[in-house]
C-alpha cells in the first residue's frame, strides 16, 4: 500500500501541469448547474437569497431602502474630492473610474502580482502622495461601494495571462485546501455542502461569490470588502485570518473572480 501511495504521489506531482483556468471554470460552473438545476446561473449573484424563499423575502424587504445607499452617497462625494495635488481618483482609472469594477482583479506584469480594486485605490492615493486608506475602514468601504454601484450590470471577464498562472494556481489551492481546527476548505461548505443548512445559515454557491462586493453586512453594521469576509470565514473554521490584501487573499480573489467570469455585477449588496 505504501509503495502504491509513493508511486501515485511522484506521478501526480511530476506529471501535473497547470489545468488551464477556462477548463477549471467550465467544470466549476457545471458542478453548480447540476447541484442547482432549477436555479438560473445568474441568480447565484444573490448568494443564499437565490436558494431560500423566506430569506429572499426578508432580503427584498431590506432592498426597499438598503443601508448601503448611505455608503454609496458618501463614496460618490469622496470620489470627486480632489487630492492635494489637484488630481483625483478619476485620473487613475479608465473611464474616470466609472463602471470599471468588473476589470478587477487584474494581473500586473510589472509587479508580477494581482491588483484588486482596493489595492488600485490605495496605489492611486500613493501615486498622488495621499495617505493610504485602511482596507477594513469606512472610507475604503464608501469609495469601493460607489465604484461597485457604477459597475452594476457589467459582467466579469477576468484574464489570466501565462505570467498570472502561478498566482491563479495559488488562489485555487487556497480555495480547496482544508484549514483551521475544524479542518474545512472553502469548497467543503460552498461546494460539497452548497445549498444545505448550517445552523440557520444557507450555504451559498461560490459561482456568485465575487459579484456583489463590497457588501453591507448587518453583522458588521458597515460596508466591508471581500477580504474582510475571507478573514471571518477563516476564523469561523478556527484558522488564523490573514491580512486584508495579503498576497494569499489577492490570489484567492483572483481565482474566485475568474470562476465568476460571465456573472453580472450587483454590488454593493446587503447581506446578513
Amino acid at each position, binding site marked *: 500500500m505504501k509503495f502504491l501511495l509513493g508511486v501515485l*504521489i511522484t506521478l*501526480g*506531482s511530476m506529471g*501535473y501541469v497547470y*489545468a488551464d483556468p477556462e477548463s*477549471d471554470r467550465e*467544470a*466549476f460552473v*457545471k*458542478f453548480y448547474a447540476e447541484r442547482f438545476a432549477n436555479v438560473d446561473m445568474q441568480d447565484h449573484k444573490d448568494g443564499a437569497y437565490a436558494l431560500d424563499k423566506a430569506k429572499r423575502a426578508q432580503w427584498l424587504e431590506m432592498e426597499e431602502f438598503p443601508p448601503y445607499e448611505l455608503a454609496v452617497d458618501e463614496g460618490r462625494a469622496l470620489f470627486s474630492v480632489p487630492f492635494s495635488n489637484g488630481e483625483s481618483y478619476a485620473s487613475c482609472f479608465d473611464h474616470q473610474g466609472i463602471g470599471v469594477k468588473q476589470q478587477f482583479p487584474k494581473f500586473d506584469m510589472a509587479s508580477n502580482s494581482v491588483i484588486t480594486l482596493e489595492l488600485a485605490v490605495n496605489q492611486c492615493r500613493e501615486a498622488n502622495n495621499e495617505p493610504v486608506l485602511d482596507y477594513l475602514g469606512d472610507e475604503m468601504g464608501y469609495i469601493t461601494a460607489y465604484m461597485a454601484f457604477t459597475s452594476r450590470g457589467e459582467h466579469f471577464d477576468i484574464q489570466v495571462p501565462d505570467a498570472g498562472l502561478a498566482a491563479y494556481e495559488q488562489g*485555487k*489551492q*487556497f480555495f*480547496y*485546501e*482544508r*484549514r*483551521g*481546527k475544524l*479542518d474545512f*476548505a472553502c*469548497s467543503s461548505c460552498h*461546494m460539497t455542502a452548497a445549498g444545505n443548512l448550517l445552523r440557520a445559515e444557507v450555504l451559498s454557491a461560490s459561482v456568485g461569490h465575487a459579484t456583489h462586493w463590497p457588501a453591507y453586512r448587518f453583522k458588521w453594521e458597515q460596508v466591508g470588502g471581500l477580504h474582510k469576509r475571507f478573514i471571518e470565514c477563516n*476564523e469561523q473554521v*478556527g*484558522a*488564523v485570518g*490573514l491580512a486584508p490584501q495579503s498576497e*494569499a487573499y489577492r490570489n484567492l480573489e483572483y481565482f474566485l473572480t475568474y470562476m465568476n467570469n460571465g456573472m453580472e455585477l450587483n454590488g454593493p449588496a446587503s447581506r446578513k
Partner: protein
Amino acid sequence: MNNLMILLLLTLTFVVSGCSESQESGVAAQGNEVQSLIDQAIAADQLAQQRQHAWIITDELLQDAITAQAANDEVAAKAAAERALFTANAALAQADKEQLAWRARVPR
C-alpha cells in the same frame, strides 16, 4: 512525513508524562521544561503561520501557558504548553497533508 512522526511521538510523551509523575528534583527543572515547551510551540506556530495554516486555538493556548507561568502555576502552564505544541504540530501536519490532498477536490 516526519511531522506525523513528531505527532505520534508527542502524543506518546503526552500520555506517559501525564500518568507517571516523574520525581524531577526542584521546581527549577520543571520551570525550564515548561519554557522549552512554550518555545517549541511558538516556533511550530510561527512555521504554521508562514504556511498560512495557523490555528486560532494555538494562540489561545499559548496565552494560557504564559499567563499560568507568570502566576507560577507550573502544572497549568505545562498542560497548556503541551496542548499548544500539540495543536501547532497538528496545524503543520494539516498543511503537509493538504499540500497534495487539495487537488482531489477540484471538479474535473
